[in-house]
């Protein structure tokens, strides 16, 4: 008979049963915050209810607020009712909540970690969590270094009795290249890079992962996915909402840091990367880093030729009049923070030589849309009379990430009639419709991967830094020149963004 370790796998060692992580504890720093109530606990509850978590599992919340275990559980239960659709089963909640614990404490003080260590040891013996722990930093980023140092000094950067210890870091991963490098150095002082899970929830979205499936599970796209066939690429991440109550945060961040550095750069990587040898953490992340390394640096003196900074003014979005950015709560009335960014980047490698990637991301645009549009070269010669091809545009393959996940290919077809008039038609495939499975929430997916120890969909240190490196010259230039171009809420960005493409004889698509 096999040894005990493989014995445990015998009952689960098959395709039809889901993978369930080893026993363990998730420790959340900043547990009284919004993310814990809105995302983390609902995701963990759903995972537990759907039998995806191990039997021996616990959650420990830490923050400064004084609360008992019971009060913390009650608060989370109320949050669950509020932020999660669908019924909460009383028995399932009771069973899940029995594994939730709260530790009030100042995350800057060593004694908090002494208490934490004791609690974790107790959970190992009482709940069988086997010395495995994941520390989720959902507190203010300014506390990250102190938490990591204290965890390290308390000996918590290693699991107990051969168990594992993992560290989850929420964005932002720094404010620029320098601070990102500093942060990474801090994290790596106590945790090995293989223990660090930088979370960008965008990568947990099924639809984003589908870019990889589309490219690498289909033989027909990859042969034309290069400079021989592609004229240019447009990546759009548009939101119709404004900054809402996040004015103070946004003033510090701006669209470049909030969206472009992480989400948009991830989409760029997935669109442009070479096929990874395998869908595992190192192969996938290595290829993404290669893309970031190949992005041509934007010369600081020429930033205005490559980047546009925009801010929304009062306007109308889908029949509703909305305030301008400077009128939003907690926003400086003379703010030059960008709510819109357009960029032109080149990826200097064999596949993408001379192909511009136009990127735009913004708030208060006419609709919420995330898409990647691959525009192909026009047919080199059409045998039809020129007048007959007026309605014909080059082929465009659009990979839509949201709201309607799918693929659309613009192709030329003959207009019915006796002549030979050709015109473009859109062939739409909503591949989301083919599988109406409820896609798991991004946090569910990522928390499960974290517990399973699979970092493929998390950001590696050099990815985070590579992305800042591309944007650093832009940020430096903007900080020296505090000006911003305006666009009316409900339009597709400032005129300068249109000029960016017009100079190249191209124009933005309407998503």
């Amino acid at each position, binding site marked *: 008979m096999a040894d005990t370790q493989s014995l*445990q796998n015998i009952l689960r060692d098959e395709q*039809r*049963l889901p993978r*369930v992580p*080893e026993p363990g504890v998730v420790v959340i720093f900043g547990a009284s915050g919004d993310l814990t109530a809105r995302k983390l606990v609902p995701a963990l509850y759903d995972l537990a209810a*759907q039998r995806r978590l191990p*039997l021996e599992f616990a959650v420990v919340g830490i923050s400064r607020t004084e609360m008992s275990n019971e009060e913390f559980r009650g608060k989370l239960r109320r949050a669950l009712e509020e932020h999660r659709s669908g019924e909460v*089963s009383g028995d399932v909640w009771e069973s899940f909540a029995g594994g939730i614990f709260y530790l009030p404490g100042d995350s800057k003080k060593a004694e908090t970690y002494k208490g934490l260590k004791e609690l974790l040891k107790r959970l190992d013996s009482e709940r069988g969590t086997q010395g495995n722990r994941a520390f989720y930093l959902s507190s203010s980023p300014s506390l990250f270094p102190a938490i990591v140092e204290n965890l390290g000094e308390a000996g918590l950067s290693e699991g107990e009795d051969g168990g594992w210890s993992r560290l989850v870091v929420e964005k932002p991963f720094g404010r620029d290249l320098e601070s990102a490098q500093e942060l990474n150095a801090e994290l790596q002082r106590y945790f090995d890079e293989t223990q660090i899970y930088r979370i960008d929830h965008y990568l947990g979205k099924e639809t984003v992962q589908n870019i990889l499936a589309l490219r690498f599970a289909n033989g027909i796209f990859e042969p034309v996915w290069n400079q021989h066939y592609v004229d240019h690429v447009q990546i759009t991440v548009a939101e119709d909402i404004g900054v809402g109550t996040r004015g103070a945060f946004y003033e510090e961040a701006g669209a470049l840091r909030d969206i472009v550095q992480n989400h948009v750069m991830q989409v760029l990587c997935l669109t442009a990367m070479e096929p990874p040898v395998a869908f595992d953490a190192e192969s996938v992340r290595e290829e993404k880093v290669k893309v970031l390394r190949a992005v041509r640096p934007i010369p600081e003196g020429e930033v205005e030729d490559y980047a546009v900074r925009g801010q929304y003014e009062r306007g109308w979005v889908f029949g509703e009049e909305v305030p301008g950015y400077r009128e939003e709560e907690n926003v400086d009335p003379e703010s030059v923070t960008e709510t819109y960014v357009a960029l032109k980047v080149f990826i200097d490698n064999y596949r993408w030589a001379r192909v511009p990637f136009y990127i735009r991301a913004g708030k208060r645009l006419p609709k919420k849309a995330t898409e990647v549009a691959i525009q192909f070269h026009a047919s080199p010669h059409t045998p039809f009379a020129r007048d007959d091809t007026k309605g014909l545009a080059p082929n465009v393959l659009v990979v839509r990430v949201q709201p309607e996940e799918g693929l659309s290919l613009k192709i030329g077809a003959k207009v019915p009639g006796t002549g030979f008039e050709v015109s473009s038609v859109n062939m739409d495939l909503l591949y*989301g419709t*083919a599988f109406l499975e409820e896609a798991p929430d991004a946090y569910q997916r990522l928390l499960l991967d974290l517990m399973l120890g699979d970092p493929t969909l998390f950001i590696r240190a050099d990815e985070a830094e590579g992305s800042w490196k591309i944007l650093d010259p832009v940020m430096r230039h903007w900080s020296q020149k505090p000006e911003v171009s305006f666009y009316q809420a409900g339009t597709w960005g400032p005129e300068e963004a249109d000029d960016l493409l017009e100079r190249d004889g191209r124009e933005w698509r309407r998503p």
Partner: protein
Amino acid sequence: MIGESRRAPGGGRMSVGQIERELGKLRTNDDGTLALRSSVLNLIVVTDEESAPEITDSVSKLAGRHPARAVLLISDPEGETNVDVGLSAFCHARGGSGTQVCAEQVTIHAEGPPAMHLESFAGPLLIPDLPVFLWYPGEFSPRSLEFAAMADLADRIIVDSAASESHEACLREIATLVEDPEMPAIGDLQWVGLSPWRSLLADTFGAPERAGDLEKFESAEVLYAPGGENRALLLVGWLASTLGWKPERASRNGEGQKIEFSGTSGDISVVLSPDSPDARLRRIRLYSEEYSFQVSRHRELSDVRTTVMRGDELIAERTVHLGAFDLGVLVGEELRYRGRDETYEGSLRAAVEILDL
């Protein structure tokens, strides 16, 4: 799922060309635009007049999650020769654009001799390049020529070993089919219904210190409802085939049955007992020298409680959702699966060995 059912008028006998044309018309929206057709598979269902309404309902519910060209064949070989074709589509709007997406269903009532040649209806109506699932919700005759002809069309056959009058005979028939190299892969809804139970049981051995108990079981108890015999047998078959138990003896035990196995480190006795009829499986309990492991369904809820005890001491416990178990869910699970399920086949063989005792 919110959507609309569209039905073509008419009926009677139709040609393949007419059927395809009418299905195309069904996808035409009121404003003249054409709804998309979405399909990931072909689903052929063979049923009888009596079960047809319930099955039709399940098939249209499946359309949301597993958009398919569904061909529902209602067979009555005893009647006068008659063929009647009904067409419908299940359409729903996607996202904000209002784009309609439809899944199609062709229902054919075949009476008299045409009912003996259902493959001649199904074959031409399949969408090319998509896998073909053949589902028998009720009794089926695996030895008949009709069955062989239908199986020839399919990539996977879905049956329900509990739908037969004799659950034992049915399990044996399926085991014979599984051994036939000419047959496509076979799935049994009674096996699908076990997945959460198996997963929960596996969870109780997630802690390394308890994994060793997998080879130290001394006894087990399974409570099942009437109609759940095969589910219980397959569960025990799974344990036996996975853990290397060899069936040795069977005896009656009150209303139920006691089966004795020899294992690598001793004998194991398993008692299967019928219980109240409201859940096909009510409880499984495994005993080792030190621990007892239990997965038990709440009487009125779809929740299930797992416990691990050492004597009277509760070591671990939790309550989770067992999930829904209606026909649509079970079939939907089968439609997700492609290829042979070797764990199922091993469990089925072990279950038949138990029956042979």
